[in-house]
């Protein structure tokens, strides 16, 4: 006679949220990589749209060919913009569009049903695009290495470790700022317009458009305080040896990670407030 299933075997195994996330991560990453490979042409075209550093590179190198600009010669400009291109490629994120689309179409509901926090599933999609992104970034890194910029790239192992931590920080900062802006779609229709405006501020204050050292004094002061430079200029300047002491680099690294903590907190707050509305709205 078949025994009735015991409570222990019938009930789903309740995992703590952290363990659930940890257990799901390898699968999420595998799915993410498969997705990126499946849409590879689209993916490469998206990556190619990051042309701004190359255009600026063309512009500034011909300006610097007439005479060096501030302390930037052609060599510094090449190193700066190629490094900016690489950092932007490795830390890029499209989570604003993803969130917008899913909120508009109601697909967010499916994501909310999963036992893993949506931040984790979004992050997994983005992290799993990094290997393919690196494939595009590596040739540029090589160009940087073999051109005349070779002698300004850092080689100090401690500085390289700081650089890796800074890249990770830049990735987290970018991702969570964009999560925050994307979550605004839970409150308003025009969150993409907010994102556009954000991109304008980002381009100037992060050193994406022009090296921060070239900004006028007051703008440089604002850029020094704002979080944007930690998304791009900080790792770029580290990589091409603009920091002459480890202490200064470590101090900025600490500031960067402080910003990471603040932004994660803010993103969670906006998200929670928005999700409460979303549930009320959907039912």
């Amino acid at each position, binding site marked *: 006679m078949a025994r009735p299933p015991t409570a222990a075997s019938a009930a789903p195994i309740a995992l703590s949220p952290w363990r659930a996330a940890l257990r799901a991560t390898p699968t999420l990453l595998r799915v993410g990589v498969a997705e990126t490979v499946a849409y590879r042409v689209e993916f490469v075209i998206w990556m190619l749209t990051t042309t*701004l550093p190359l*255009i*600026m590179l*063309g512009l500034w190198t011909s*300006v610097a060919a007439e005479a060096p600009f501030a302390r930037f010669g052609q060599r510094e400009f090449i190193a700066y913009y190629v490094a900016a291109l690489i950092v932007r490629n490795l830390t890029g994120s499209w989570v604003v569009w993803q969130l917008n689309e899913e909120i508009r179409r109601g697909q967010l509901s499916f994501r909310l049903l999963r036992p893993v926090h949506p931040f984790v599933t979004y992050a997994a999609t983005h992290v799993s695009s990094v290997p393919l992104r690196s494939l595009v970034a590596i040739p540029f890194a090589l160009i940087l290495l073999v051109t005349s910029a070779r002698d300004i790239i850092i080689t100090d192992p401690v500085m390289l470790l700081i650089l890796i931590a800074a890249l990770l920080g830049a990735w987290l900062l970018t991702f969570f700022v964009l999560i925050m802006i994307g979550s605004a779609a839970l409150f308003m229709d025009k969150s993409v*317009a907010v994102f556009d405006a954000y991109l304008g501020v980002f381009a100037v204050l992060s050193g994406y458009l022009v090296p921060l050292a070239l900004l*006028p004094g007051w703008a440089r002061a604002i850029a020094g305080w704002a979080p944007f430079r930690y998304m791009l200029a900080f790792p770029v300047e580290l990589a091409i040896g603009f920091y002459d002491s480890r202490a200064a680099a470590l101090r900025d690294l600490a500031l960067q990670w402080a910003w990471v903590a603040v932004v994660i907190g803010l993103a969670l707050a906006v998200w929670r407030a928005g999700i409460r509305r979303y549930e009320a709205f959907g039912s």
Partner: protein
Amino acid sequence: MNRALRYAGLLGVQVRASAVTSMQYRIDFVVEGAISLYWLAWNLVPLLILYGQRDTVAGWDFPSALVVIAWFTVLRGVLDGAINPSLVGVVEKIRTGEFDYLLLKPADAQFLVSTVKFEPWKVLDIVGGLGLAVAAFVMLGRAPPLADVGLALVLLLAGALVLYSLWILIISASFWVIRLDNLVYLFMAVFDAARWPIAVFRGFWRVLFTLVIPLALMTSFPAMAILGTLEGKTALAGVGGALVFAAVARALWRAAIRNYTSASS
């Protein structure tokens, strides 16, 4: 003649429909205005930085470079107001098969596709761009002769025609290769380079932006025309090139339509 009148009438209907839709969102007028002003200001940042330390770059002084940015802003307004809104949805329609209904209508499909939607508020961008141009000429301390203004407008039209033809080419290609809509974003990213006078780019970039993707024709040539520094030969070549480009795009579109077998078959 009859045909031209009929299409002019159709265009009127489509524009009116778009205008009526936009009137429903009057608050957008303020929002769009604020956004245009914001971008106008940000667009000037690199220019101000560059000319903060230099009097001329590659032979262009500040007011002349400002004219190029003015032209860039105007063209951007035309693109966002009259070209992009209609064409952005076409690729999706081809993918889903909705495009069939459009083909059934008794008018030229390319015309219909290109006039579905206008965004009248983008006129603000054009006004902003013209404002910049006026500011530049105040700085120069002279007014451009009327003939030069006329030539600049003709070249602006040629530039818009090239932009439009590029779009048609991308759409035609998407009849064969399905997902190409992000090529448009790629193009918009490259179009950004058009805010600089072509002379500041050298070597590879100059060739790319003059011959392959004719950004020079779109902003630098009209700016040079209004400044009175453009040679007649270059202007003629520009307009001729734009016409050839448009003809090629039209031919490819027709070939693509003939090949079209709907999404499900």
